[in-house]
């Protein structure tokens, strides 16, 4: 799997290269800022990209902007955004195009190698990977429309979906059968008014609804 990395901190980019090489990924380019990231994406057509939020010149949220720009350039380009801290606002911005292939994780998660590469593959396959801390930020306060119609179990399922877990992982984590998971997800889609004919990724739409209303 071909990867482009946008990370200005050499310590981290070299660490990522090391890890990805060990896990059979091919890092085709490592760049240090937004414009060269766009150039590298155009030149190398990677299967998945990894972008740090803080990039030169201002070290603010250039990474988010670069990710959004790259996805305008190549719709659906899988991007995994890494940051020292996570903000639900950024998660929402990343997900708004409703296309999937988005991940947003704390840099801490990188060291859980298996989980990190799992998340990276999920994003590359068009899924999502949201940091548990983003989800935790959403779990404060009472629920409201349209999520108020969901049962606690369905909310639990939706939260895990938002983190990016697939149905098998969901079944494992909740200790229920795959069939039960399917039923919960069907109920969630129905309650959120997401019909199979809707354009866009239904799972992503559900996650987006969750992020917007929690």
């Amino acid at each position: 799997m071909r990867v482009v990395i946008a990370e200005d901190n050499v310590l981290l980019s070299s660490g990522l290269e090391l890890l990805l090489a060990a896990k059979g990924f091919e890092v085709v380019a490592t760049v240090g800022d937004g414009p060269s990231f766009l150039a590298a994406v155009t030149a190398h057509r990677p299967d998945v990209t990894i972008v740090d939020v803080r990039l030169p010149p201002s070290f603010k949220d250039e990474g988010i902007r670069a990710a959004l720009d790259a996805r305008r350039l190549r719709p659906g380009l899988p991007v995994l955004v890494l940051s020292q801290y996570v903000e639900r606002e950024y998660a929402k911005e990343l997900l708004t195009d409703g296309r999937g292939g988005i991940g947003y994780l704390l840099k801490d998660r990188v060291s859980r190698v298996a989980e990190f590469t799992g998340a990276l593959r999920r994003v590359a396959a068009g899924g999502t990977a949201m940091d548990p801390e983003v989800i935790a930020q959403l779990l404060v306060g009472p629920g409201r429309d349209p999520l108020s119609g969901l049962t606690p179990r369905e909310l639990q399922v939706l939260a895990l979906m938002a983190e990016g877990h697939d149905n098998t992982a969901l079944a494992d984590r909740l200790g229920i059968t795959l069939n039960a998971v399917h039923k919960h997800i069907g109920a969630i889609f129905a309650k959120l008014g997401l019909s199979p004919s809707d354009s866009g990724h239904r799972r992503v739409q559900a996650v987006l609804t969750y992020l917007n209303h929690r």
Partner: protein
Amino acid sequence: MPKPWRGVAYLLDGLLTALATIVLLPVLALPAAAHAWAERHRRRAGLLLGVTVPDRPTPPAGRPWARWGRDLLWAVAHVATALPLGLAALTCLGNILTATVSLTLWWALPPAATPRLLGDIPVEGWTVALAPVQIVVLAAVAWLGGPPLARAHARLCLAVLSPSAAGRLTQRVEELTRTRAEALDAHAAELRRIERDLHDGVQAQLVAVALRLGVAGESLTGAPEGATRLVREAHEGVEQAMAGLRAVIRTAYPPILADRGLAGALTALAAGCGVPARVHIGELGAVPVAVETVAYFVVAEALTNAARHSRATSAEVRVERVGAMLSVRVTDDGIGGADEARGTGISGIRRRVLALDGTVQVTSPPGGPTTIAVEVPCGS
């Protein structure tokens, strides 16, 4: 110039400036002119007395005449004292000069131009002998009497023009306000630097270490149980350190504030709050980072209270600039009855706001609504 002659020079300068003061009287109707003229003499008096003369406080806004009366009083006192003293000094010096000229040239002058000594004594015949006597006496008078008189005048000048106790306090308050604003800016800049340094340095290093420990842990299959456990514990330790560091940074200087500014950070806060919150942000102008940080924490705390205790169904955040103040107002439609003594939320808000010389007003009658209104001065 030997010291005693500086006294005489001071008195002669006083004579000239006293005359100038009389001529310039119409100009002194302008407070700024009167101030500048008085300041010149304060500096001069300070120089003679060898004391430093601190700047006088600027009059409070809206009362430009406060200092003017004192400047005019000084002008009158100056004319009344410097004029006779200066004339006396001039008399001494003038007569020393006359006596010297008489002594050297009396024999060559025609009778019609006979010079006269002090006391209208014509210099002819034996009176020539009086000339050196007068020179010595007048010089002694100037030498001995000039300096104390000059110093007395200088002290009078400083006494008339020295700021009142209230004026000194006003000046002190202005100084403290300014230095506090500077200290706050320095403190905020320091916070920002520390946040950036931790982000680029320690945090990045911890991630790099964790990453390598993670890779090492993966490749340790078949290694002795002890070694595997140590690596796993080290890995977990580093992860805890990262989480701890992140929490510390978040409470000291929220990264979202650094990334998105106050408006963006508050919008994010409201979006993440448990109750639906509307955010109105007016034209803010330049807001010191320290004030932004406080505004952020006030809104965060108020919204948390609203979500946790008030059973509110909606909240409103309003941030605007009112003159030199940043006004932050958070209202919720909950049950009210917020008790400052119970939770630490409001007292935390109060502590942070008071540190910036701001004000906090909490209105929370039983039954609601609750409004927390904060005003913080935006520095000098």
